[in-house]
């Protein structure tokens, strides 16, 4: 796609948005042309979400102009945005899972005769619409019966059907597996060919390079520039996003490699023999040593989280034996695990981890306080001390312990969650998808932190959908497929993403991995 000859369908100039104490957007320009996929890039807190919320009418702007199809518009709310031809599919699927697929696509604009909804027409049109997106599902089933990936496609189908002008896809791929991403991209290309302008946000650089024509980079609420994707090498893009050299990332690479070799001689902290739970994960054996990083690799839904939850007692195992420090234990609930020095940082930081209305300090203190018992409150001075230390160590931004956590970006929320568990000084830290949906810089910092912790003797069970990340950090990798631990690999020469992918794809059970 060359420099577009057509006029932009959307033109934003000098957009300014101020929140109490923060300038979220400072004179940002943004253009979107028909028939292009335009990536909006930036670290967490760069202003991407704010820009999108401005565009969808969730936030009102404090300055600047928005031109849609050449006319100046004021987007008063989500409904107004939809009417103007801007539809959005958010990071978390914003549909009503209690309603049927068909209804989710048409709710609010159902075809009617004399006020009576024509369900037959709705079902038929929904099925046709999804078929165009290569999706053959029962449209009269509740949305909750489908996976997140399908829910996402349904959200896109709705967005596309509402308006053919501008579609915003905010992190649509963050929870999809590779084939689902491919399917999504097919849909996007088709829309592009129809002249739809697509605004795409993703943290996966490869995806950006595969699908986008142009990109706009934001940093700290300011416009860094607009580029053609093909003309901007990845390294330069990342540097523009984080505003510094990539030294941090590369330093990490060496460190992880260096520490990979040790650990074999260390004593085991946790041993699982034939531990399993019906419907969640088949019985598995797994040993985690002191100072060892064990990575769990596998596709979405392969049982990664389920395995981790068993080891923390968040779910109860119904078969097998678990021992910690050589002594058999029954993890009835997380409290028992916590007392034994196991910490679990959850995958859903919004729903299961972070308490948005509490301050950074309160969120960090939470687990330690729980471990001590509520009858022995931690003195305020001690709290401030600990919190300050970890805010600094983990570079939580803004470095204000009293700010409500919900005002922090995703990456920083993740760090707060990590800090919460780190201050309990666990011996085994289980982290589930710590880097999902956070930016490159924060990702590198968290990876670095994991490597350092393991160097310090902490055992880490690292769960991630990104193979590269698992490979970079782990001493040992457990591969899961279809809720079964199929192979355990010592990381080293000969073990790479391809090798693991093959294991997952062939699904062959290595000897001794399962009962």
């Amino acid at each position, binding site marked *: 796609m060359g420099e577009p000859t057509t006029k932009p369908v959307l033109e934003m100039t000098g957009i300014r948005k101020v929140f109490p104490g923060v300038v979220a957007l400072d004179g940002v320009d943004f253009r979107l042309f028909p028939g292009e996929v335009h990536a909006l890039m930036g670290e967490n807190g760069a202003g991407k979400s704010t820009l999108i919320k401005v565009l*969808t009418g*969730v936030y009102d702007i404090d300055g600047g102009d928005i031109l849609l199809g050449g006319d100046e518009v004021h987007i008063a*709310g*989500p*409904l107004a*945005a*939809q*009417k103007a031809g801007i539809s*959005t599919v*958010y990071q978390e699927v*914003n*549909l*009503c*899972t*209690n*309603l049927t697929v068909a*209804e989710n696509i048409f*709710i*609010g604009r*159902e075809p*009617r005769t004399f*006020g*009576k*909804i024509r*369900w037959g027409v709705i079902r038929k049109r929904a099925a046709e619409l999804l078929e165009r997106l290569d999706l053959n*599902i*029962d449209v009269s*089933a*509740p949305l*909750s*019966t*489908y*996976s997140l*990936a*399908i829910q996402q496609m349904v959200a896109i189908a*709705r967005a596309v059907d509402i308006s053919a002008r501008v579609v915003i896809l905010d992190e649509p791929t963050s929870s999809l597996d590779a084939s689902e991403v491919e399917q999504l991209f097919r849909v996007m290309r088709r829309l592009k060919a129809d002249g739809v302008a697509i605004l795409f946000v993703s943290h996966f650089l490869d995806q950006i390079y595969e699908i986008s024509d142009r990109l706009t980079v934001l940093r700290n609420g300011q416009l860094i520039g607009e580029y053609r994707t093909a003309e901007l090498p990845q390294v330069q893009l990342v540097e523009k996003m984080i505003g510094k050299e990539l030294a941090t990332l590369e330093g990490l690479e060496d460190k992880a490699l260096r520490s990979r070799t040790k650990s074999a001689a260390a004593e085991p902290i946790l041993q699982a023999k034939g531990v399993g739970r*019906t*419907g*969640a994960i088949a019985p598995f054996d797994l040993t985690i040593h002191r100072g060892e990083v064990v990575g769990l690799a596998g596709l*979405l*839904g392969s049982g990664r989280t389920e395995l981790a939850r068993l080891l923390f007692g968040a779910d109860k195992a119904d078969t097998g034996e678990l021992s910690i420090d050589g002594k058999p234990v029954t993890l009835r609930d997380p409290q028992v695990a916590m007392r034994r020095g196991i910490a679990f940082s959850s995958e859903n930081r919004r729903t299961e981890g972070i308490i948005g209305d509490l301050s950074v300090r309160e969120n960090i203190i939470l687990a330690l306080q729980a471990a001590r018992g509520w009858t022995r409150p931690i003195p305020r001075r001690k709290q401030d001390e600990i919190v300050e230390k970890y805010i600094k160590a983990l570079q939580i931004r803004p470095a204000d312990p009293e700010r409500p956590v919900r005002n922090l970006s995703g990456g920083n929320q993740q760090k707060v969650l990590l800090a919460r568990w780190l201050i309990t000084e666990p011996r085994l830290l289980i982290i589930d998808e710590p880097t999902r949906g956070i930016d490159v810089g924060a990702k590198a910092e968290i990876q670095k932190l994991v490597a350092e912790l393991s160097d310090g003797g902490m055992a880490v069970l690292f769960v991630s959908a990104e193979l590269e990340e698992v490979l970079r950090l782990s001493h040992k990798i457990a591969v899961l497929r*279809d*809720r079964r631990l199929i192979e355990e690999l010592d990381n080293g020469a000969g073990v790479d993403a391809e090798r693991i992918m093959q294991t997952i794809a062939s699904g062959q059970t290595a000897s001794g991995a399962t009962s």
Partner: protein
Amino acid sequence: MTTIDATPPSTNQKAAVNPRRRVYRPNTKYIPILATLALLIVMYVSGIANYRNFDQPSVVVNLFRDNAVLLVVTVGMTFVILTGGIDLSVGAVISLTTTLTATLLQGGWPPLLVLPLVLLLGALLGAGMGAVIHYFKVEPFIATLAGLFLARGLALFINQESIPIRDKLWTTLSDMRIPLGEHTRTTPTAVVALSAVLIAAAVLAWTRFGRNVYAIGGSADSALLMGLPVARTRIAVYTVSGFCAALGGVLYTINSTSGHALQGSGTELDAIASCVIGGVLLTGGAGYVFGSLLGVLVYGMIGTIINFQGDLNSAWTRIVVGILLFGFILLQRLVTRRAR
């Protein structure tokens, strides 16, 4: 209750193996309502087996007559609960309506003016509470609790005594019987109550407003982002509930040809319990008016059985309802856990 155990766990396992495959769960959303229906049938059959004349059609028909007020109020409550809210004010709105109706009629106001006036008042009270709940983000529990005190206070302010009604229209309606068969007749109030159920069911199933109610109950945030009129809908459900409560009050004045400021206390709890027993999820987004109807009928059936038994204390109604509530809440828990 065996239906729950019959839900094969194996289907869940299959879903776990391949998350992309559609999970086949037979009629999960109908389980609570079917359980209530089964319960109702069991109660009815055991009534027939144990008591003479229980098999008369009038037993069933009278359920509607005796519970007309509760039924209408429960219909309104169903709308509110489907959005994930709650309306504690309905009992007080009933008492305000009965007192006001009786007072105005006693004062010689034309009945055809009084009727729309009190219904409008109920709807306005509901709309007011809905607006407070939505625009000031007040918990429905608190807002409608305030409404409860306000309405009950107003009723007591108007008159603390029972006020007889001698209006022609009211007494005519009160004495009127609609024949349904040779030995079976029913009252206009029962017809009104049943009509309310049918209208509500149609509105919930076939209108945008009805579907928006479900959407808000499913996820109010999503509903907003999908561009649905959340404010309007949320205010409307409380308006519907207020209107239904007022209508219930009117039905009461017709049944008893009197008004009393203490009438209707506790009805809000009966209505909520009926919804829950009928399978309406308290967190919103799932349930049917017909379920609520069944819930009310269970209520009525317990009373009928106690009547037929003759030597049972009427406190048994509450005890049984209490046990049933526990049972159904547990059932809902099981069903929603399966659905996750």
